[in-house]
């Protein structure tokens, strides 16, 4: 059993939403509402969910830039928001969705990389220069890219530069938040292949957040499915298409175009996703689940181990 690199225990993140005159009546947007998550060293964990699922919020909490309202995140046993914050911070890096806003438009790529490399502790000019060249090679960018400004690069190239920046500080753990969603199909494939290669080459641990199920299914070792702030199912990637158990997972697969996945046993959800300000009692999916029973509306199901590395939070099991 490979060691657990990063662990989130009983994580909650609530955002205040003001209502009423003078902002007296305070409501809370429960973006993440009780999540336990474990990521093993060297694995690529896919986090999939629709909008409002809380996956980006969870990603940012794990990245160390969003303090949980409740709960603890441990990196190699140390609290990410504790005293040793500064030491841990650089070991976890985040890559963002929008290639246009993730690079400073006024900085050349070499300056972006230099800043990161120096932040990692490297001081000599020569070492910095050779490291810049090395990083560009690692992410498949030509040496000429170093002198360019972001607006001179295509979306795919900008993302590669962002990945290079993340690698510059030699992190252990990389969180990729929808990094291919804004890219064209042909470029998506390039970046996905790159991530797989880098993970193998550097033994990185990755959290890959995406709403795109075929992409997550392709790239991940294990997959966690989120809905309305909670994890519904965690399973190995190859089980995703063969043996999805949770009705929500099955609903997600059912709605995919058949080019990506042919689903025999379709599950259709009723209604619309409820507001995270007022999530349903009991199981979050109970208002829409075709299999909902009485108990589903009263008691929230726990994440239970079903098989090897397979966990489901559902009263059906």
């Amino acid at each position, binding site marked *: 059993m490979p060691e657990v690199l990063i662990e989130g225990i009983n994580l909650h993140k609530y955002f205040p939403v003001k209502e009423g005159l003078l902002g007296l009546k305070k409501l809370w947007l429960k973006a993440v509402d009780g999540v336990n998550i474990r990521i093993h060293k060297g694995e690529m964990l896919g986090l999939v969910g629709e909008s409002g699922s809380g996956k980006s919020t969870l990603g940012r909490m794990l*990245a*160390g*830039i969003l303090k949980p309202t409740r709960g603890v995140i441990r990196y190699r046993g140390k609290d990410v928001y504790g005293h040793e914050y*500064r030491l841990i*911070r*650089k070991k*976890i*890096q*985040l890559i*963002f969705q*929008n290639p246009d*806003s*993730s*690079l*400073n*438009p*006024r900085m050349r790529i070499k300056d972006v990389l230099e*800043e*990161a490399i120096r*932040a*990692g502790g490297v001081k000599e000019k020569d070492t910095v220069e050779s490291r810049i060249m090395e990083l560009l090679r690692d992410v498949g960018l030509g040496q000429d890219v170093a002198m360019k400004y972001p*607006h001179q690069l295509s979306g795919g190239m900008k993302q590669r530069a*962002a990945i290079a*920046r993340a690698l510059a*500080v030699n992190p252990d753990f990389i969180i990729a938040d929808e990094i291919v969603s804004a890219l064209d199909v042909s470029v998506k494939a390039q970046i996905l292949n790159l991530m797989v290669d880098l993970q193998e080459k550097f033994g990185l641990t990755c959290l890959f957040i995406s709403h795109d199920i075929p992409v997550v299914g392709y790239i991940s070792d294990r997959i966690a499915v989120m809905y309305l702030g909670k994890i519904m199912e965690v399973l190995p990637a190859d089980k995703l298409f063969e043996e999805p158990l949770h009705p929500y997972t099955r609903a997600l697969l059912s709605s995919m175009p058949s080019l990506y996945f042919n689903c025999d046993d379709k599950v259709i959800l009723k209604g619309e996703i409820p507001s995270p300000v007022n999530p349903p009692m009991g199981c979050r999916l109970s208002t829409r689940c075709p299999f909902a029973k009485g108990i589903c509306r009263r008691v929230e199901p726990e994440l239970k181990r079903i098989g090897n590395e397979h966990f489901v939070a559902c009263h059906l099991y």
Partner: protein
Amino acid sequence: MNEVVRLLLRHRGAQIGLCILLTIISMALLADVLAPYDPYKANLRDALKPPSLDHPMGTDEIGRDILSRIMYGARFSLFIAFASVAMGAIIGVSIGLLSGYYGGWIDYVVQRMTDILLALPGVVLALALVAVLGPGLTNLIVAVGIGFIPVYIRIVRGVTLQVKAMEYVTAAEMLGLSSLRVLFKHILPNVFPSVMVQVTLHLGSAVLAAAGLGFLGLGVQPPNPEWGAMIGTGRNYIFRAPHLIIFPGLSLFLVVLGFNLLGAALREVLDPRLRRG
């Protein structure tokens, strides 16, 4: 940066503005060499003489050559303008950056104070301050400069908030860079363009504000050749010797025109570029 300068130099308005300003600035700098007479030397026999070959702009009520006074006067107007705007901008930008970046109660307090300052009309504020501080060059600069501070706070805070939301700022923070470094390296350069536009526009206002106070006798005191003060004293002779007012007035007009043309051109050059970038 270089691109901006290049585009600016091609802009017609900027060219005119720069010409005017450069002429006046050189006039101010080289006054010692260019001025035909001592601007302080009185000569009552030659008082109130209209423009002639000897005195191209005529003489004032105690016989001083107006052309020389205009040249030396440029020093006052320009110095006051640059100093007061510099003061306002440096203080305003710093506060704006900190307020926008750190947010929280600091931001709240700063915003409310800015609201109050902005509610007071600039000229009235300057007047009040001069009344309290007394006349004189330094006080004039402070009085005019304070009125500019809230404008920079507002502009800079707005841009800071925008830039703070950009992921490259988050990325820099995740590298463990200190907040000060993030502010200087990432936020300030993006704030710079809007600030520069405002600075050029403020320079024109500052010249006018100083002249206005000078006109009222509250700014630079006689016998100093400040253009506003010259108009103030020349007021008494408006029918007999209008040239006492015309030339300082024209000079003021040209300087403000120069700054405004430059400011407008700068804004135009920066705006579509931002969109294209």
